């Protein structure tokens, strides 16, 4: 399968998952929100079920295709820690990440989410440009 087709079908499955959670439970499939509420101990049962489902979905991929999807981190441990802290703090401060703002926010035509997506895409491009500039 071409990587473009795999990306398109994978994206449509992510959208399908978001629609399931929206029409069945009435909830937004925003990962930072779900994980944040889980850490705070709010709506524990459903949030925990969703979060456990994420790695199980990767296991289904292994069973279906006979190998893990590729996961390759390109930076060393200090930058991994910095990136994790920024992703965690920033996604909670901005009330969403690639799923809540990126998928559902854009689908709802939310102006807040459009600003968030434009901002985090720009910041991501800047971060990668700086990494490349530093030869990392």
């Amino acid at each position, binding site marked *: 399968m071409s990587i473009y087709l795999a990306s398109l079908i994978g994206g449509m499955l992510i959208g399908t998952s978001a629609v399931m959670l929206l029409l069945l439970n009435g909830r937004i499939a925003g990962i930072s929100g779900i994980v944040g509420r889980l850490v705070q101990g709010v709506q524990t049962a459903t949030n925990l079920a969703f979060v456990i489902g994420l790695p199980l979905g990767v296991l289904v991929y292994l069973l279906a295709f006979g190998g893990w999807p590729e*996961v390759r981190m390109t930076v060393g441990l200090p930058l991994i820690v910095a990136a994790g802290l920024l992703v965690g703090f920033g996604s909670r401060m901005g009330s969403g990440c690639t799923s809540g703002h990126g998928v559902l926010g854009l689908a709802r035509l939310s102006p807040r989410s459009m600003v968030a997506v434009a901002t985090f895409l720009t910041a991501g491009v800047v971060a990668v440009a700086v990494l490349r500039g530093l030869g990392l």
Partner: protein
Amino acid sequence: MNRIILQVAAALASGIVFGFGLSLSGMLNPARVQGFLDIFGAWDPSLAFVLGGAVAVAFVGVQAMKRMKHPAFDDSFHVPTNNRIDAPLVVGSALFGLGWGIGGFCPGPAIAALMIGLPETVVFVVAMLVGMTLHDRVWSKRP
């Protein structure tokens, strides 16, 4: 059947489909994500199809939601109503984007990738949970 059981089953099924979709899409791979963000270098535009496909399907779901009185397993929809574009939205999204570019992981793929058991992924997720807790328990509670 007890409604909470239906809600938990729906959340689990939704999480599994999400994790499988992430795996198929290439979003699970930080190197691919950084290639997508590397528009001034060897740009790999393929991940734009992930966002496009996801938003297109979700858009149909949102239209269906508008025609429903309530979701299947709850009395009302829990959809954000805040329309203010404020500093926390922009600053938070900028910080998130910097971390996303540096590490190549956003929250969903990082948690899904725990399945594969790479130590770097575990370190990233722990740091992410610390960052979330610092925001929710310290920053947003400051005097």
